Every structure is written in C-alpha cells, then in structure tokens.
C-alpha cells in the first residue's frame, strides 16, 4: 500500500533562483512514521537555513555531490548533514527517488552515522533494504 507523504512547497524558492526555474523535481516527506518525520524536520532546522537552501537547490537541480546528496543503492539516496545541538552529529537522511512526471524525492529515515568510512554499518544496510520496498503514489 502507498505510504503517506507531505509535499514540500518549493515553488517560491524555485522561482527565486534562475537555475531552478525549469526544475521538474519535487520534494516530499514520508509522513507514515511521525517520529521519523519530526526528527527529519528537527535535523533540517538544526542544520540551518543556509545549508537547507543549498541542499534543496542541489536536489531540485537534479544533481548529486558526495558530501551533500548522493546515490546509495538503486533509487535510494542519502542527504549528508551535520546537525544536533552543537552541529557535531553526522546525520544521514535516507530518501527514495521516484521518476514520474519529472522526479519526486521523498525524505524518509534519519540516521546518525557513527562508524568510520569503509566500515559497514548494518543499520544502514537494513534501512536501505526497507526503503527499497516502500511504495508511493503521486
């Protein structure tokens, strides 16, 4: 069954930036799990306006950068952000991309990355596998 989403209204933002005016990308938040949704909102708020604008512009421009927004596995992607009260926590927000009438990006699960690079984090592997099974209708 299709999961609930909340649409992020980015129209004014797109209109304000010449590079985004033709963007066919839309952003949504998975609203099925209120705890995750609230945590994602908290992480974005803690990261601050400047970083959120940069991140959203990258997503809306349909671009990928290893340190901001990157492809993980298939249609699963991850946002990288430093957040937390003193901005010292290495957050990931796992997302799913759906290619339908342009591209829809759904922000789904927040996760604090604790292991070092090249070490496998089983939690991340599980998150990605679960997200792959999620279905959305637009």
């Amino acid at each position, binding site marked *: 069954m299709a999961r609930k989403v*909340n649409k*992020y*209204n*980015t129209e*004014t*933002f797109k209109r*304000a*930036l*010449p*590079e985004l005016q033709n963007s066919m990308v839309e952003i949504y*938040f998975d*609203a099925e799990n*209120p705890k995750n*949704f*609230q945590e994602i*909102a908290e992480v*974005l*708020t803690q990261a601050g*306006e*400047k970083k*959120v*604008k*940069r991140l*959203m*512009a*990258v997503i809306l*421009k349909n*671009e990928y*950068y*290893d*340190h*901001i927004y990157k492809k993980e596995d298939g249609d699963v992607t991850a946002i*990288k952000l430093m957040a937390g009260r003193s901005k010292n926590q290495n957050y990931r927000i796992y997302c799913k991309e759906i290619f339908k009438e342009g591209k829809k990006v759904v922000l789904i699960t927040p996760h604090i990355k604790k292991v070092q690079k090249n070490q496998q984090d089983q939690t991340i592997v599980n998150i990605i596998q679960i997200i792959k099974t999620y279905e959305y209708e637009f």
Partner: protein
Amino acid sequence: MSSNDQQIMKELESLLNFGTENDKLELEAELLHLKFVGVIEEMMAQEDLTKADLAAKLSTSKSYITQLFTGDKLLNIKTLVKLQRALNFSFRIEAERKKPLFEAVICDKFKKHFGLDLVKGAGEGSRYRLENTSEKSQRKLIA
C-alpha cells in the same frame, strides 16, 4: 495532513525564504562553487584519492577539504590552481549566454507601444511574454 504536520511543514518551508538579495547571491555563489566541486570529486575518484590525500597534496587540513566539498567554504582562484596541479588536470571554461527573458506584461498597457495591437487575437486582457533572441527581437503571444 494533521495540524501538527501542517505546522512542521510551515516551519520547513520558512527555511527556504530569502531575507535579502545578498542571501540569494550567496546561494548562487555556492551553487557555482559546487560545479567545481563536482569536477574535483570526479578527478579524485579517477585517481582513487581520499580527502586526506588531497589535503596532504595541498598542504592543508582534511577539515578544510570537507568544508570545500560541503560548500561551507568557497574556493578561490589560487586554490583552483593548486587543485589543478595536485590532481594533474585543467579546467575547461565554457560560457552560455542566457536568453533575456522579460516578465509577462498586460497588453492593454503595452500593446500600442510594442505594436502588438496589430497581432490577430490579441484581445483585451491578453498577456505577452517578450523574448529576445540573438538574431532579432521577437514578440510572442502566450495567452
């Protein structure tokens, strides 16, 4: 959508507001900077270099490299030259002229001035978008 969700969405949407024209300029600068970062990331992947390797080659810290890659710090021309040397490549610069695009205007007010009253179907309240091409000015009816 529940009222709590609505409140959260409103707060999230407010993060995308621009306070001043300078905020917009800063973001556009960051996006231009990221175009360079994209090339550098690609070059590093080809050479199988880590951020620590690159930091060593540039005699700088790994955290500075991270700040460049996240867009928290912007590149300057001197650093671009250092990056070209360190990764043994050179940037190829290309430019693309954008078509000047004017806002839609109410034809009642401007049609006479632009001679649009001669266009068939340009009724009261119609709007026009004016686009300049490189060859000559064109007037295009959009509604």
